[in-house]
Structures are given as structure tokens and as C-alpha cells.
């Protein structure tokens, strides 16, 4: 336990950026610069914690404030570093995308947007670096408050309803969380995160189980576990960068992170097994994985499909933790960054499509790849990853999750992972095929012979008798109007991340951090 200013800087910088953002509201470029400065600073601070943490140090920062004997303090351990690194890496990328998005659409209230974004990321980092459950709870609720302006950004009736639903769900979850926190503190006498779980929980099983149930419900709301997932699909009314970072990465991953803390650092695998509390969570996770995957098939908008797919994918992580076995937990820890990069690519691509062409519905997809080839290629790669194809990140985490399930006490749950992956294929392949291989509804300017030849070449009989002179040139150059760089670069960065995590995962810090978590929890 070494005192360090790094966690305080990492959490404090995003919050500190809120004031300058408001002060420079009349000068957009300066205002955006504060976001990027804070993002760079937070990233450097978080990245600097990784090596010491892997060496075994625990970097702490106390605030001096405590409630009823429980201090509000920050501490970086491998699990926190993994989540914090993910959030800190994706915030600058999302900020670049946000700039492109809000300026292209000329959104109102941009200052409020960027300020709330910074506060949300700060809260997320606070959740990651919380030293005990009380601190985590404080930042968790702050996250709800900070994300509210983002969900309600549009200020339309639909947005207000969605935001009201979001707040109703998450604050109710927060109430359950508080109740569980209180009961846990009575049952165990402490709220600190201890690898392998707190001692003394088995002395009062009923109380421990009640606390467990409340904590699971509280975190489960943000982790979008059925039946408390209802806020996520309606929150898609928020602007796409918000859906991308927050509702596919920060908010939902906070819920999953909290569940991980409960299973590994508060209760621990042994207590979970003794108390027999894992079974309902396993059941709910399987239900969510499969139900979310099936519901996605009926979605009409692209973002709606992505929302249900998020619901389903998050329960991969929940199930991995709930199986309380080392390989399964490792798979879940790998899936946290893997899913984040893939899902963000998908959301960014969907947002670029909606900005550039106005298409929001799945029915508008046919032929779009002619206009936005790179964007939709990234979409296709990320979709392949979610279905579990190598060399995208989803293959590696799926591999470990299935292996982990087979080695756990409930090997049949492996079937749930494999079936859920199949459901993703059923969802995404028609979308990808429509975008790349179907004709757009109206002719968008056919450029003559070469395109006709290219089309003819795709028919079984080559489209003509005799030699087909397919010059095979880039016939569709004249139609390509790729997204603007501010939108395209983040898409490319995110998909590159997903590919790196799928090709050489051991070279990235997430791998070693996940290994460290498993080593200290399941020792």
C-alpha cells in the first residue's frame, strides 16, 4: 500500500476539466482542448499505474473524509487498473468522435455535453479506483447523475421519457445497493476490497445472502441483467458517442465491474460456493445472454440491435464471474476490453452512417457499403468479432469463457456461450450482407460499363455468353463519400484495438492485469 498521487490525478483531472469547459463555452476549440488535455493527462496517470500494480504495489490515495468509520479512498489494484485503463484509453477516442459528431449535426448545448461527458468519465475512473464499497457507491451514483444530461440531451419527449426511465432504474438499483452495503458492513464488519473475499461472512449466512442479493440487484441494473435491463434499449435515444462510450462501456461496464468486485473481492469464490448464492445469478445471466440475443433479432433500428446485443454480451462477463472459477473469471476479464472495443466500433460506425446518410433503420442498410466502405468494413470486422471469429478480440475471450465454463462446476453453461455467439451471427450477417452485397434502392449514379461488368461477374453464368471483359477496375470510386476524418479515425482506432486484442492479446497490458487478478483472487 503505497501512497501515490496517481489515482487522485486520474480521477480528479476529468472532474477538474468541467469548470474550464464551462468557462470557455464561447470558444469551442478551446473548450474541446480542455477535454483532450484532461483525457491525455488521465490516460498518462492511469498508464503509469499499470507497471507498479503488476509488480504488486497497491497505489492508494486517501481523501481524509470518512462516513461512520469507512474512509472515502482510492486504491489501484489490478482489477481497477484494467477497467481504468480501458476507460482512459477510450475517452480521448470518443472525444474525437464526439467533436466530429456534434459539429456535423450542429447539436445544441455542446458545452453541457462535453462537461457532462468529462464528469461521467471521472465518475467511471472513481468506480474503477475505489478502495472500498462505499467509495464505489458514491462514484456509482455520481455516474448516474453525470450521465443524465447526456441521455436527455435531445430534450425531446422521447428523450425525457428515456432519461426518466434510466434514472428510475438506476437510482432504484442504487437504493438496493445502499441497503446491501449496509447489511454487508454489519455482516462482515468491513467494506474494503480483499482479494478472495472478506472473512467472517459465513458466520451469518442469512444476512450474508440478503446482502448479496441486494448488491447483485443494485449492480445488475447497470449491468443490464434481465429483468432489470429495460433502461438500456430506450437510452439509445442519446447521441451515438454517448451510447458508445457510456452505454456500451462506462455505465454498463461499471455494473459488471461492481459484480466482479462482489464475486471476487467482497465475497470471494469460496464464500460464494459455501453460501450457494451463485445459482440465481448464473440463471439470470444465461437468460440474459440468450434472451438479449433473441430480442436483438427483432430490432428495427441499428442502435436498437446494438443495445440488445450489449445486454446479451454483458452477461458473458456476469456469467464468467458468477461461475467462480479461475479460467472463467479470466475469460470475463478479457471480455471487458474486448467487448468494449468491438461495441464501440459498432456504435461509432452506426453513428457515422446516421450522420453521413441519415440512415438509422436496418431497412436502410442495403448498398450502404458503396458510400462508406471503410466505415462498414470496420462494422463488419467488429460484428465478426462479436460472433466469435478470429482474429478479432471476441474469439480469444470466447475461447477462455467456454473453457472456463467447462472447467467449472456447471459445464453445461458452455453451451450458453456458444449459442449466444450463434445468435450474434444470425443478427449481424444479414446486416453486413445487406450493406455490402445488396443493391441500394435507387440507382446512385451507375458509372457505366465497368460497374455493369462487375455486377455481371457476380452472376452464376458470368452474366453473358462468351468472354466477359471484366476490367475489374474500381468502378464505384465516384460513389464513395467516406465519413469525415473526425468520425473515421476513431472508428479505425477502435477496430484496430479490437484486432490487436485478437491477434496479440498477450502483448497488451489487459492480459497481464487479468492474470494478476486471477492469481490474487484464486490463490
Amino acid at each position: 500500500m503505497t501512497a501515490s498521487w496517481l489515482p487522485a490525478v486520474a480521477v480528479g483531472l476529468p472532474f477538474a476539466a468541467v469548470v474550464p469547459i464551462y468557462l470557455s463555452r464561447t470558444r469551442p476549440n478551446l473548450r474541446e482542448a480542455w477535454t483532450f488535455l484532461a483525457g491525455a493527462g488521465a490516460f498518462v496517470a492511469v498508464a503509469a499505474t499499470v507497471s507498479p500494480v503488476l509488480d504488486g504495489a497497491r497505489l492508494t490515495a486517501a481523501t481524509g473524509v470518512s462516513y461512520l468509520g469507512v474512509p472515502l479512498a482510492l486504491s489501484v489494484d489490478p482489477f481497477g487498473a484494467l477497467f481504468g485503463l480501458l476507460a482512459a484509453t477510450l475517452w480521448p477516442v470518443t472525444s474525437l468522435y464526439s467533436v466530429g459528431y456534434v459539429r456535423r449535426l450542429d447539436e445544441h448545448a455542446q458545452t453541457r455535453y462535453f462537461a457532462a461527458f468529462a464528469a461521467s468519465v471521472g465518475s467511471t475512473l472513481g468506480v474503477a479506483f475505489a478502495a472500498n464499497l462505499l467509495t464505489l457507491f458514491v462514484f456509482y451514483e455520481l455516474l448516474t447523475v453525470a450521465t443524465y444530461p447526456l441521455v436527455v440531451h435531445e430534450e425531446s419527449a422521447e428523450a425525457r421519457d428515456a432519461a426518466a426511465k434510466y434514472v428510475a432504474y438506476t437510482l432504484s438499483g442504487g437504493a438496493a445497493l445502499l441497503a446491501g452495503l449496509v447489511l454487508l458492513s454489519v455482516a462482515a464488519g468491513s467494506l474494503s476490497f480483499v482479494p478472495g473475499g472478506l472473512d467472517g461472512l459465513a458466520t451469518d449466512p442469512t444476512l450474508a445472502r440478503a446482502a448479496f442479493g441486494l448488491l447483485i440487484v443494485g449492480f445488475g441494473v447497470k449491468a443490464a441483467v434481465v429483468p432489470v435491463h429495460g433502461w438500456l434499449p430506450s437510452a439509445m435515444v442519446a447521441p451515438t458517442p454517448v451510447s458508445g462510450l457510456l452505454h456500451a462501456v462506462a455505465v454498463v461496464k461499471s455494473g459488471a465491474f461492481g459484480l466482479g468486485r462482489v464475486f471476487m473481492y467482497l465475497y470471494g469464490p469460496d464464500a460464494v460456493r459455501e453460501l450457494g448464492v451463485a445459482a440465481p445469478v448464473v440463471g439470470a445471466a444465461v437468460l440474459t445472454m440468450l434472451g438479449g440475443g433473441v430480442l436483438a433479432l427483432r430490432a428495427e433500428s441499428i442502435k436498437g440491435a446494438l443495445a440488445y446485443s450489449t445486454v446479451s454480451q454483458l452477461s458473458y462477463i456476469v456469467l464468467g464471474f458468477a461461475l467462480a472459477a479461475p479460467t472463467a473469471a479470466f475469460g470475463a476479464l478479457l471480455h471487458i476490453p474486448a467487448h468494449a472495443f468491438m461495441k464501440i466500433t459498432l456504435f461509432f460506425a452506426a453513428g457515422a452512417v446516421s450522420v453521413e446518410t441519415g440512415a438509422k433503420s436496418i431497412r436502410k442498410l442495403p448498398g450502404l457499403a458503396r458510400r462508406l466502405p471503410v466505415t462498414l468494413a470496420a462494422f463488419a470486422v467488429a460484428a465478426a468479432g462479436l460472433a466469435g471469429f478470429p482474429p478479432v478480440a471476441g474469439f480469444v475471450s470466447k475461447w477462455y469463457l467456454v473453457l472456463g465454463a467447462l472447467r467449472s462446476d456447471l459445464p453445461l453453461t458452455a453451451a450458453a456461450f456458444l449459442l449466444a455467439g450463434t445468435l450474434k451471427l444470425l443478427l449481424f450477417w444479414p446486416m453486413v450482407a445487406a450493406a455490402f452485397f445488396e443493391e441500394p434502392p435507387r440507382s446512385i449514379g451507375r458509372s457505366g460499363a465497368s460497374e455493369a461488368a462487375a455486377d455481371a461477374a457476380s452472376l452464376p453464368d458470368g452474366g453473358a455468353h462468351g468472354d466477359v471483359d471484366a476490367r475489374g477496375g474500381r468502378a464505384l470510386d465516384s460513389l464513395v463519400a467516406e465519413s469525415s476524418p473526425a468520425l473515421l479515425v476513431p472508428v479505425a482506432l477502435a477496430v484496430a484495438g479490437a484486432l490487436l486484442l485478437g491477434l496479440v492479446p498477450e502483448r497488451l497490458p489487459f492480459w497481464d492485469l487479468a492474470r494478476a487478478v486471477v492469481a490474487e483472487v484464486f490463490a
Partner: protein
Amino acid sequence: MTALAAAPPAVVFLVAAAVVRLAPRRSGHAVAALAAAAVVPWLVSVPAGAHLAGRLYGFEVVPFGVDGVSRLVGLVFAFVAAANVVYAYGSGTTRGQTATAVAYMGASLGAVFAGDWLTLVVWWELMALSATILVWQSKSATRQAYRYAVYHQLGSVLLVAGVLTHFAATGTFLYADGIAAGLPRLLAAAGVALNVGVLGVHVWLVDTYPTPHVATSVVLCGFTTKVGVYALHRVVPEGSLVVAYLGAAMLVVGVTLAVLQTKLRRLLTYHIVSQVGYMVAGVGVASALAVDGAFAHLVNNVLYKTLLFMVAGVLVLRTGEESLKRLGGLWRTMPTTAGAFVVAALAITGTPGFAGFVSKGLVVDSADAAGLEVLWWLLVAGGVGTVLSFAKFGYYAFLRAPSSDDDGSGGEASASGERPRDANRAQTLALALLAVPCVAFGVAPELLLSLLPGNAPGAKVFALSQFEKAGATLLFGLVAFAALRGPLGRISHVPDLDAVYHPAGAALRDRSATAVRNAARTFDRAAVGVVERCRRVALAPHAFAAVGVRESTLGRTVLLVALTAAVAVATLVLA
């Protein structure tokens, strides 16, 4: 580590695919064909062993493992890949289509040279992915591509489950004695069986292969099922009677259904099922002779089956017709194509002097040597059926005079009324490239036998009994064709299991999606209703007084609820 083992050959193919996509069409195709051809001598001279051993995703892997079987399969894949690229150039594919095809063939090579299950699974998934894209690129076949993806996903799921349960049982992915017996073996074999096209799950072949661009069919026909056979041997190296008889069933049922087909590529696709049956039977018997026979047959089959699909492709491209009933008399205007057909047909029917004679003899002999009489009869019967169906193909497409066709549509041999031209230069080169080994391996079988892993112990290649069997098969087959030509001519469409699977699958998907959505909606409405009710009560308790609920009653109820909750909490805390 020698320079020859510096990288797996799949990498060469992937690079070549990029070149095809980016370079001008002619030079790109030339580079790819030459690269594939260069892989052949490379594979002949690379030393056997487990090369490039390392770690992938935290597990020990061998990305480039060479032994007798993998070398043999890799050689024929590389050779046929070169011919396929030349054919694609001549058949008017786009650069994207050829690039995807080269990537697909590269992934197949990757799977064959995998030295461990993890590498195999990775390349297996990439094969499925690239084949899906390849079929998609023939835009007329979008639904078939989707179904292909779904079938192969189901197969992958079973294979992954088998491989991971194997790892859970043994702790390693490296190839040892096949997959661990019991559940792992069952799962892995089921997953591989889908790729192989075992009866019952063979329908994806018939659904997908005849529909896309002809060059795509040519590429697809030679790879996925053969990688499946190879993988089956790795899964069950000591064989199994069940597998042997499954192979015999594939052979007999496949050839029967083939005889009943009237569309060119559909007929050939059923033949894939049938010929793969020989290989599966050999893998099932699994004596050294049987394995040699199975893989010799794989080599020959890739050669002449690709040749047949190329012939069919030229016919379709030149005449615009897929149906045998509307063709005829083409030997006059398309002599090269007809000649290639004759070579391939003689090879597939096992005529002495052509490739199939030797390898079929090996498989049939191995059944005899293992004492499996029923299997022996089934294999021989399948041979008769093969002769019958290729007699039919040759007769309808090439021999019979066009004006005497059965459904009276009369006139010229092609839909457009012109005399169709023969294969162009590139296509002819491709046909020739494949026809040469079909003859060479038949006339000088030592060329093939020397490459076989077990050196074919006990192979009596030129024994009199072989000629007798081949002669009898040919005779029976031709007589059967003459006798059955009339009735066969009246059949047009024969349904298969896909008429059951596809509607059932779609119904399952749609019904469950709708059911789950309705359940979710009901739940959501109920939850929102409860919250709404609470909200209204909380915000305006007086309103309820107006509806008849007295305030004192409301207050008493709230008090009661609060007291109950307090008692519960106190009990929990103090207990």
C-alpha cells in the same frame, strides 16, 4: 530451423490475395497463380516435423506441422489453387472474388498444416468466413451464403466444444492420439462431420455449391469437404466402424441422388458427397492401406472433381444453361471441353489408365483386407452408380443430338440459338493443368504411391482382380444407363432434407424471436405499470382520497408496511 519452415504456406496465400485485390487484374492473377504453383515444390522439400512451435493466446501451438498426410493434402491443394486462379481469370471473376478465393484456399492450407487443435480451429473459422464472403460476392446467392454461414457456425460450435472438452481432459492442444474418447470425440466428430457433408447434414453442399459464380463453385468444391476428411482422420486416427459405414452410406445415397439430378452443378455436388464417402470409409477402416487409399483418393478427387466443375462452368458460361435437358451435341463445337470431360469422367469412374482406378482400388481392397464384406459390396455398388451418372452427364451434355431432346424444345443446343464457343485460353490452360495428373497418376501410379504416407502396403495396383472389378463396374454402369435412360429422363426435381431443415430453422428463429419479444413487452408493461402506480400515489395521495380510499386508511396501511419492514430488518440483523 530451415528457411523452408520460416512461415506456414497459408501466409503466402494471404499475401497473394492482397496482391490480387490491389494489382491490375492480369498481373494480380498471374502473381497468385505463380505463388500457388511455387508452394508445390516448397511443400515437397520442406522437412517433416513440428515447425514454428510457439504460444498463441497463452497456449502451446504448432502453426506449421508437416507429416506424410498433411504434406500430401497440402500439395494437391496448392496445385489445384494455381489452376483455380487461372480458371477464374478466364471466367470473368472480379478481383475481389479471386482475392477472397485465394484467401479461402490459404485458410484451407493453414488448417491442413496446423499441428494443434487451436490453430486448426482458427483456420477453420477463417475458412468458413472467407467462403461465406466468397458466396456473398455472387450477389445472386445471398440467402445461400447466409445459410452456409449458419450451417458452418453450428459445425464450428460443435468442433470448438469438442476441442475445449478435449483440452479440459488432457491439458494440451497439441496433436497426440486424436481427440480424447467419449464426449470430446463425439462433439468434435459431429462438428467435423458437418464440414465433410455426412448424410443428414450434407444439404448445405447442395444448397450452396450450385448457385454462385461458376468459378466460385470450382474453388469451393475442392477444399472444405477435403479439409473435413483430413480433420476427421486427426480426430479419430484409429478409425471406427460407424465412420466407415457412414462413408459407405454417403457413397451410395449420394450417387443415387446424383443420378436423379438434371442440373449440371447439382449433379456434381451430389457426387462430392458420394466421393467423399470413399474417403470417409477409408478413414473409418483406418488400416495403413485404408488411410493411404483414402488420401490417395482425396488427391485424385480434388483433381478430377475440380476438373468436372470447370467443365460444367464452361458449359454454363457458354450456353447460359444449367439444365442437362436443354443441352446436347456439344462435342462438336466444344471439343476441348468435351475432351476434358472424358478424362475426368474416366478418372472418376475408376477406369484403368486414369487416376481414380488406383485409389478406389486401394480403398476397396482395404475393406476386403479388414474383412468388412458389406462395406465392400457397398463400395462396389457405389462405383456402378458413378458410371451411370457420368454416362448420363456425358450423353445429355455432349453426345445426344440437340433436336431429339425429350421435352421437345428442339432446335439449337443453347438458349441463345448460337453455336457455343469452346473454352477460352485461360480456361483451357486450367483444364489441361488438371487433366495431366488425372492421366499421369493412372498410367504411372508410382508417382502418387510414392507420396503416400504408408507407402501402401499390400497394394495390388495392377492385379487382374482390379481390372476385373473396374471392367465389371463399367459394364454394369453403362448397361444400367441404357436401361434407365427413359425413366430417368422423366424426373425433374428431387427434394432433399433442406426442404425440411430450412423452413423449420426459419420458423424456429421467427417464432422464438416473436415469443421472447412479446414476453419482454408484457413484463415491461407490468413493470412500468407498477412504477406508474407508485408514482401517482406518492405524488398525490389526496387524489386517492377522492377515489374513495380514505386518508386514514392510507395512513394506516403505510404505517403497517413500515412496521413490517422494520421488524423484518431487525430480525435479520439480530438473528
